[in-house]
């Protein structure tokens, strides 16, 4: 079985960057969660999730980022999403989740 999601994790001092490629759906979201959640459990860790190469995401992806956000609040880490394609960014806006999840819109992919 093939899974249409791959995640590269780059760790520096107090910073974890996840570079996500593929599609985030009910099948692949557990893999994202498995890679993302441990990083959020580190105190004062700065976590950046680069979504430039994510062309598809649905509510299962939103769910993973909600879990991750909760974990950052518990453990004193931070979470920022960067380089969202317009379609993916739109889901955060429709659900108003962009008001609680930090999204860096200065650089945006897919445009």
């Amino acid at each position, binding site marked *: 079985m093939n899974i249409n999601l791959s995640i590269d994790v780059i760790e520096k001092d107090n910073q974890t960057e996840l570079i996500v490629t593929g599609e985030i759906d009910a099948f692949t979201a557990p893999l994202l969660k498995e890679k993302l959640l441990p990083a959020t459990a580190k105190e004062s860790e700065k976590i950046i999730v680069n979504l430039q190469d994510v062309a598809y995401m649905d509510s299962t992806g939103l769910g993973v980022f909600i879990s991750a*956000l909760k974990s950052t609040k518990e453990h004193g880490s931070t979470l920022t999403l960067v380089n969202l394609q317009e379609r993916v960014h739109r889901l955060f806006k429709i659900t108003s989740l962009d008001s609680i999840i930090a999204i860096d819109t200065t650089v945006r992919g897919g445009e």
Partner: protein
Amino acid sequence: MEHFDFIEMKLPAKPEYVGVIRLSVSGIANRMGFTYEDIEDLKVAISEAMTNATTHAYEENEGGEVTIGFGVYADRLEVMVADHGGSFNLSDVKKQTGPYQQSESIENLREGGFGLFLIDALMDKVEIKSGYGVIVLMTKNLPTNEVGLDDDQISTTQ
């Protein structure tokens, strides 16, 4: 009676097949002449419905299947997603449906709470019926062609 074509798919209620449904609906919607934006909306809405159905199947611990029906009309696409078996409290689900409100605490946010809300936001019409299993019936209208018919319309598939 209004003419339409009907396409039916039956799949195992497993998350690995959500991507298959997305490609199928993408093919149907592209053929019908939906815009790229509308096709992306349809992909999300149908994935959400299929994800709900697989979640019910999982909770019921059954090797169930999901049936998806596409009604291809001249002016719209109707999609029906049905899972079989497993009961379902419709009023509970409706209570959980909505965007994030500033008044809600983050702790109370439900990981899986946005599926039906997205279906409702992305489709033109949505009905949910609960009985023996759950049926989500959703409609997306084709944009009315106000620029006139263009015979040499160019389009490519993926």
